């Protein structure tokens, strides 16, 4: 979002006063397309790009994509899919939604910071802290009222993630430290703190396991698990976490549009000078926004822990890629609630669809796995240069317009020629 605005501003300055209206019209155009349209169009472009690569390696992109599609479980939506195929599809779709849940929450954590003019790279660390808090609360306090226990674990995770992000917010507000740097650094601190917690003999290392076995946390007690509502809990069916995440997408939208904090965040994000002139404190706003971002990322981890993971290995802490995916999701979703939701579903589907076990054996599994990275890369590329995407779409429209007009102009020269300009 901010890149586009800068781009437009630079463009307006270049072409001078005469073009003063063009950024506004492009802004309006962009807003008209915002929400879910742009993410989908961007993804389609990325898929076409990925398809070309598959083609170049001598494989058939259509079979590859159709097998990925089946792997996502989205074929469950087709009524003609039945029998065992349908059961597989249901399982896959559950996985897709399970994957989408934390992607959406971390995406929101990145998107909210973006709206206030900050780049939150710290989703990973905030998620990690949230996970540590959730697994600790979830595996302790045995015998607590289940609903309360779940709530307690989620709130603890939100607080831990929020506090972690809050550090970056305070540093930015007080010392002017760039949040990109501080959040990246805090990620590493968080990851190694997590390793320390769950390593053999660590403070949160499982008490059930022998000291010589695996570096893992205690397991979340049954009362603190999120209920599974689709599929079997034993087979990692879909828990209610996805609804909680979608609920938070609504919270995000309301926060941005209807609250004082959202208004201040957007004002500071768009134009800190004007916000300051109006009496807002950029620093205070940054801190508050980061607290909320961190809370979103922390909740993401709690939904994973309480929904299907139930425990944390040091290995999980070290290999998780959720922070990077969250950035891609927010970028693709253009930092709106609806866009981020769609983008999270798309990335969830992509991750599930390309994971090896779902791929039919006639297709090179390595290629498919790398295809995920390629498509992801293309999406980020297209989003960060989203002016290109916009131009492509807009250019296409103008072209269509011109094509339609040309015969008219040719048929009736004279007055119509003015319109050709």
């Amino acid at each position: 979002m901010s890149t586009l605005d800068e781009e437009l501003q630079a463009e307006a300055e270049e072409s001078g006063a005469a073009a003063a209206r063009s950024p506004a019209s492009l802004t309006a155009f962009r807003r008209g397309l915002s929400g879910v349209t742009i993410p989908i169009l961007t993804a389609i472009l990325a898929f076409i790009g990925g398809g070309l690569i598959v083609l170049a390696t001598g494989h058939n992109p259509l079979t590859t994509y159709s097998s990925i599609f089946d792997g996502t479980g989205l074929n469950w939506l087709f009524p003609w899919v039945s029998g065992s195929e349908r059961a597989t599809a249901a399982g896959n779709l559950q996985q897709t939604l399970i994957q989408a849940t934390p992607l959406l929450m971390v995406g929101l954590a990145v998107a909210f910071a973006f709206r206030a003019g900050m780049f939150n790279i710290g989703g990973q660390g905030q998620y990690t802290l949230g996970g540590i808090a959730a697994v600790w609360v979830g595996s302790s306090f045995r015998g607590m009222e289940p609903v309360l226990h779940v709530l307690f674990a989620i709130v603890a995770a939100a607080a831990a993630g929020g506090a972690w992000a809050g550090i970056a917010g305070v540093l930015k507000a007080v010392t002017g430290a760039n949040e990109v740097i501080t959040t990246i650094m805090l990620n590493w601190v968080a990851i190694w703190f997590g390793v320390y917690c769950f390593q053999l003999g660590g403070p949160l290392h499982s008490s059930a396991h022998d000291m010589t076995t695996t570096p893992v946390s205690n397991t979340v007690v049954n009362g603190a698990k999120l209920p599974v509502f689709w599929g079997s809990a034993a087979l990692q069916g879909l828990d209610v976490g996805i609804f909680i995440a979608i609920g938070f997408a609504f919270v995000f939208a309301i926060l941005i549009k209807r609250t004082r904090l959202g208004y201040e965040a957007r004002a500071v994000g768009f134009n800190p000078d004007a916000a300051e002139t109006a009496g807002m404190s950029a620093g205070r706003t940054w801190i508050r926004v980061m607290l909320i971002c961190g809370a979103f990322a922390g909740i993401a981890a709690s939904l994973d822990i309480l929904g299907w993971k139930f425990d944390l290995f040091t290995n999980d802490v070290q290999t998780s890629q959720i922070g990077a995916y969250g950035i891609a999701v927010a970028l693709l979703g253009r930092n709106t609630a609806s866009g981020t939701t769609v983008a999270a579903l798309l990335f969830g589907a992509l991750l599930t669809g390309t994971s090896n076990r779902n791929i039919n054996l006639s297709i090179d599994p390595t290629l498919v796995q790398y295809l995920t990275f390629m498509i992801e890369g293309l999406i980020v590329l297209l989003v960060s240069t989203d002016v290109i995407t916009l131009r492509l779409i807009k250019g296409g429209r103008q072209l269509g317009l011109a094509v339609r007009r040309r015969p008219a102009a040719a048929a009736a020269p004279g007055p119509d020629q003015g319109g050709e300009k």
Partner: protein
Amino acid sequence: MADSAPPVLELKGVTKKFGSVVANDRVGFDLQRGEVHALLGENGAGKSTLMSVLYGLYSPDEGEILVDGEPVQIGSPSAAIKLGIGMVHQHFMLIDVMTVAENIVLGQEPVRRGGVLDLKAARARVRELSERYGLAVDPDARIEDITVGAQQRVEILKALYRDARILVLDEPTAVLTAQEARGLTEVLNRLKADGTAIVFISHKLSEVLEVADRITVLRRGKRVETVARQGATERSLARLVVGRDVMLAVEKTPGKPEHALLEVRDLCVDDDRGLEQVTSLSLTVRGGEIVALAGVDGNGQQELVEAIAGLRSPESGSVTVDGRDIAGRGVRSATDAGVAHIAQDRQQRGLVLPFTLTENLALREYRAPQFSARGWLRLGHMKERAQKLLREYDVRGGGPEAYAAALSGGNQQKVCVAREIASDPKLLIAHQPTRGLDVGAIEFVHSRLIAERDRGRAVLLVSLEYEEVRALADRILVIYEGAIAGEFPPDASEEELGIAMTGGHARQAEEVNG
């Protein structure tokens, strides 16, 4: 003497329009070898535009440019450099982390065989040039470590390194201390003696009289007159600069000042670089009067306004609004005390351009109970009020849901004015409230300010325009170098004000008048 030789540079009938605004209207200008020719005029008189045409930044709509008597087309700055034209911009174009020598040769680096940069040759050349013209700089110092005056010398050396025979200096003394300015004068004399022709852009009368051989005065894009330094006085120049054009006449009765609403006492304010811009300044604005702070840009107006509006903490002194001391307590406490502030730069400070008009109109008061409660915005109320204000202030170009970026400058300014006045202030600061506006919008803003005065508000108008100051003010305070240089009644003559604004002595002018 050298009357037969063609001028080094001649501009004939140069016209440059931006939309409907004529920035240069058939301007003629010529420059002889070894001469300093000053271009004098108010902000927006067209000085910079003319020089941008010369430097290839704008192409003129009409007119021609002759160098050594030959007509030339200057399509870009590099074409201008090839013709021997060098420009020292007001804002330096230097790379902070590179050394003086590196900056000077940048783009035309001496290279040894194989394309290796020959820094030794660069340094030697820089040394030679700097000794020849008395432009003392250390070739190995980094730009960020040297003073502004030295940076300016680097800019001049940059032009000389590119063999400039024509040197354009855009308000060169604006950034210099008095001592540095004297040094610059010496450099200019040496350059002159060497045959370099210099265009010296300025709006300060005294320094123009000091350095220039001839002076061309521009007013509203037109050349008024070219005079020789001999025989010119500050007074005669001031008259040429200000002109005798019709003023904007807004109906106005004499003010009825009540008790003091703004009292500034011994205020000292530093700018971002830590330089004192406002020096022990005191002023009073009473309810029911418009006090105009007149002055040339950069004499501390910005810092003073920021200090009163709560955007900048003063180093010392007090700012009292209706009995409440607000100095250094932030924007909110100023707002709560009843200060409204029409910011100088509406796009950068006044508005959030990607916000809707509803959102923009709420910026000052969104925390008031009628617009938000317990952290929730009352969007309905915000929109209702926006609708009312847009109607009342005749803002065209979109309703409450339109984006501020989509509005024209005049309508954007109306939004700013509407918002600030609607906050029902005791003190209204209007900082250049009509900059860049057309006549209709100017009139509208002016009549609004007078209406506020008539409702008993205190209005502090900060303006660079003589016409505006004289049309609105009940009292005129002239600010010069961060202090009040004098108080004048609204019927003060333009020469009087002009001289005070440029550091001259008003009394002398009076004596001459008498």
